[in-house]
């Protein structure tokens, strides 16, 4: 049991490329921390630095009260689940799990007890003698998990462990990982680029971008109060609608409350189709361009009358002038129809013009 603390951690490669630009994260004992961000944001690098697979060029990594910057991976008392599982292809499932224990000189009887216990928990008992290539993707994934839990380490590290599975299995394994972590109550750090995975797994969510932390916190708190336009558009699907407050249409509706804000954000589900303008809120006229009915809800893709500037260069960005509206059920206007959608005051998110900070009205 341990907490993991990153103090101003930096990574600069010999070529001068700065992959991690000073990160501070504090993961409490038994907590599940998820690092999320687009590819290349440095989340995997950061995880590998915690594992000891990458050197730390600045700051401190502290595991259970011990600074481990110079400690070999094997001596950090961590276990890692890799994206491609990294199972030893020539060893049986049993030996894959036992290898790390035997290398530490554990007695064979104890090795056997631990591996069998892990196999029971992960429902791998019938396939202990098989080789990895005789297993399905989900089973391999469980072996990789087993290899981590037999060690009973202080910290679990997960590097996108579910990204090689198909969608259905991914959801099932996601639930299993969470249950397992709750039961073992082991501090965990989990890397993913999938915001849904991040939201559902995390006690603490760390949103990263360009080698820096954009926001840290409880996933729902982040969802409700994204600190930057990057977080706003990265967390939540479909992404938050972002628009400039400089157009006459919006400026006039926001009135004085716009203040210094340059960007207005509204989540698709916060819109309602209405003829009125909600008090203190915002209403937009849209032309319906496309409709997606997925059963419980319907997405309306509308275009605004006037073109406007791009406001945020981030993943999930919408084309200029496009707005997504989510409504429950399957009722929807016809394509080409002109509608009016509105959002109430409390559902508006205001950001500075550069998108780097949130403005509370």
């Amino acid at each position: 049991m341990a907490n993991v603390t990153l103090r101003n951690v930096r990574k600069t490669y010999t070529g001068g490329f700065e992959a991690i630009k000073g990160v501070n994260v504090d993961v409490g004992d038994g907590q599940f921390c998820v690092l999320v961000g687009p590819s290349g944001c440095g989340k995997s690098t950061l995880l590998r630095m915690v594992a000891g697979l990458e050197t730390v060029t600045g700051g401190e990594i502290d595991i259970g009260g011990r600074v481990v910057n110079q400690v070999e991976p094997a001596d950090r008392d961590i276990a890692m689940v890799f994206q491609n599982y990294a199972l030893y292809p020539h060893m049986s499932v049993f030996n894959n799990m036992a290898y790390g224990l035997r290398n530490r000189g554990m007695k064979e009887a104890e090795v056997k007890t631990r591996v069998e216990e892990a196999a029971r928990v992960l429902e791998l008992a019938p396939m202990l003698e098989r080789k990895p290539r005789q297993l399905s993707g989900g089973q391999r994934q469980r072996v990789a998990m087993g290899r981590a839990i037999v060690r009973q380490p202080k910290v679990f590290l997960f590097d996108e462990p579910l990204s090689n599975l198909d969608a259905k299995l991914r959801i099932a394994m996601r639930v299993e990982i969470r249950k397992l972590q709750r039961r073992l109550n082991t501090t965990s750090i989990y890397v993913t680029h999938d915001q849904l995975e991040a939201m559902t797994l995390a006690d603490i969510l760390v949103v990263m971008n360009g080698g820096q932390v954009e926001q840290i916190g409880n996933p729902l708190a982040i969802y409700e109060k994204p600190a930057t336009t990057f977080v706003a558009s990265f967390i939540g699907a479909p992404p938050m609608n972002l628009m400039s407050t400089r157009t006459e249409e919006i400026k006039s509706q926001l009135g004085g409350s716009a203040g210094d804000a340059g960007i207005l954000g509204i989540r698709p589900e916060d819109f309602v189709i209405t003829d009125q303008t909600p008090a203190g809120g915002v209403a937009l006229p849209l032309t319906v361009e496309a409709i997606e009915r997925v059963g419980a809800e319907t997405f309306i893709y509308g275009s605004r009358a006037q073109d406007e500037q791009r406001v945020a260069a981030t993943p999930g960005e919408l084309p200029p002038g496009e707005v997504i509206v989510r409504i429950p059920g399957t009722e929807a206007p016809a394509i080409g129809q002109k509608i009016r959608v509105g959002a109430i005051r409390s559902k508006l998110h205001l950001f500075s013009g550069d998108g780097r900070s949130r403005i509370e009205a």
Partner: protein
Amino acid sequence: MVEDEGFQRYVAHFILWVGIAIVAFPVYIAIVASTQDNALIANGQMSLLPGGHFFEVYYQTIFVGTSGSTREPVYNMMLNSLVMALLIAVGKIAISIISAYGIVYFRFPFRMPIFWIIFITLMLPVEVRIYPTYKIVADLHMLDSYAGLSLPLIASATATLLFRQFFMTVPDELLEASRIDGAGPLRFFWDTLLPLSRTNMAALFVILFILGWNQYLWPLLITTRDDMQTIQVGIRKMITTTDALTEWPVVMATAVLAMLPPVFVVVAMQKLFVRGLVETEK
């Protein structure tokens, strides 16, 4: 496809059998000749069907040798060839796999120069530096020795490159998982990399064994004693005497015996052989 049916197919079968016949004919003749009487062959009266002298010819070949100048039994030549081929194959694999491991999995000063020093040897077969190499082997008192037969042929980069290529395809995560599992460099090599390289080693072994067994020019130069002759050198010496004295059935029996081990390896381990051949040419 449709046109591969029927007539086209028979044509293909026919051409392939003609090809096989052409490829097999010289060997068939050798087998037939090795069971016949020398006098008949020397008169140009050789039959195209097997004769009745199989046992006496092979007994003489293996245990006695020709009655002429090189009275060396062929079993001894085969033994020499076998030792040389094994030394070349095992030696080359052993030194190559560890040097490839060093070059791929470590960073150290002069890594790239060392790689190039080894790499360049790929370009030049022993034939082009034959006399200087002979002189060095002579200076090292390795003439007529197994070391002299095999060491100069071990000095080449093919296997190192092959292993390097293979190591590059081994996922980095395997090494990282090993490090987290507490394995150091030697342990990772022994527990993980070596078992993973098994198929490559086997494929390489098949190719190197055949190449070693079939060496000719080098053994011809550095063996002076008859009892150190390899079978390839021995068979050549059997037909050095005047035509009339050449004991053709014994020569042909020796040819068959010389073909037997490598051909057996190719046929029995075809998959590994094909793989080794394709890999070493990459």
